[in-house]
């Protein structure tokens, strides 16, 4: 290790005046003899001083307003009793989740039940329906038959009527012939 390298480890403390008196003297002596080290120390001192005076960056004018919005978003506009509300929220969400799961399961169970009941009711309904249909068919057939009968009867009546009229005409005709 070069002599300069050994002293390099002390340069920062030397600049800041934090060396012991003995070390201070040793570094002073070295710097008086080594221009390279002297230049290094000068540059380090200049940079340190320059950095102390770097332009201060300021936050934007809306910084605090935006922060308040984020804080309010986090607290839900409720700051008092925050630690308590946190503990409430601690069980609330799982309970809500459980409730939703139970609701879903119940819903599916109910739908499934309805479907099954429908399957049971359906055959009875269909047999009852077919019975009704049979009855209806019978009634309909009867009514058709009745209607047909009526038509036939009406036709018969009509033919009877006509027959009677014809008989009357014949009788008249016969009387006329006898009268001559």
């Amino acid at each position: 290790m070069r002599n300069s390298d050994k002293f390099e480890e002390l340069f920062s403390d030397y600049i800041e005046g934090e060396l012991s008196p003995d070390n201070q003297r040793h570094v002073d002596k070295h710097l008086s003899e080594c221009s390279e080290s002297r230049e290094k120390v000068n540059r380090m001192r200049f940079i340190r001083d320059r950095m102390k005076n770097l332009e201060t960056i300021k936050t934007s004018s809306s910084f605090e307003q935006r922060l308040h919005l984020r804080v309010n978003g986090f607290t839900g506009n409720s700051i008092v009793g925050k630690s308590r509300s946190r503990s409430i929220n601690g069980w609330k969400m799982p309970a809500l989740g459980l409730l939703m799961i139970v609701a879903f399961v119940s819903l599916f169970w109910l739908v499934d039940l309805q479907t099954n009941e429908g399957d049971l009711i359906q055959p009875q309904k269909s047999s009852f329906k077919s019975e009704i249909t049979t009855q209806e068919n019978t009634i309909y057939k009867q009514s058709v038959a009745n209607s047909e009968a009526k038509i036939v009867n009406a036709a018969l009546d009509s033919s009877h009527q006509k027959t009677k009229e014809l008989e009357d005409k014949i009788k008249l005709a016969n009387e006329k012939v006898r009268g001559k």
Partner: protein
Amino acid sequence: MKKKTINEKKVTDEILIAQFQQGDVQAFDVLVHRYKDQLLNYVYRFVGNRVESEDIVQETFLRVFKNKHYYKEIAKFSTWVYTIAGNLAKTELRRRKRRKLFSVSNFVNEERDFDIPDIERNPERLVDGNLQEIIIQKAINKLPSKFKEVILLRDVQGFSYEEISQILNIPLGTVKSRVNRGRLKLQEDLRFLLENKTN
């Protein structure tokens, strides 16, 4: 209003955080007002991007708000808040590094962004203070994180070695060693800039 200002100045950070822990949100506002600019200054010099730096400082205060009960008066409030800000800044740099690994720009020479302007041809530009700041900031950006953080805390923010040791949770000797090595690296990178100034 003047009286309130005087009272605010007298009240220490530790009293304010204690009041905030009791539920006094105004105490939190005072702490924000006190620390927002200096934290931004630190983070900006670390990360190099103004918008991201403000986001990091916002996130720092949000964490202070959420985790106020974690603060114990063993350490100073400034130590705590700078620790949070520093960790967030380092996380951002690591994230950038990962993004860069997968970036197409890996195939492009980006050294151009970090080239120091050719001052030797225009020495009169050395008197331009703004240009000096830009050049110094570029040199700071090139430092490894472990040197950058101690240099910023010591030379820009003005913390003592003991405070830096607490903020970064590293031994005092390590802090001094890193400050020294950081300054040596900076003076080497800025040699051309400083040869005219220091002679």
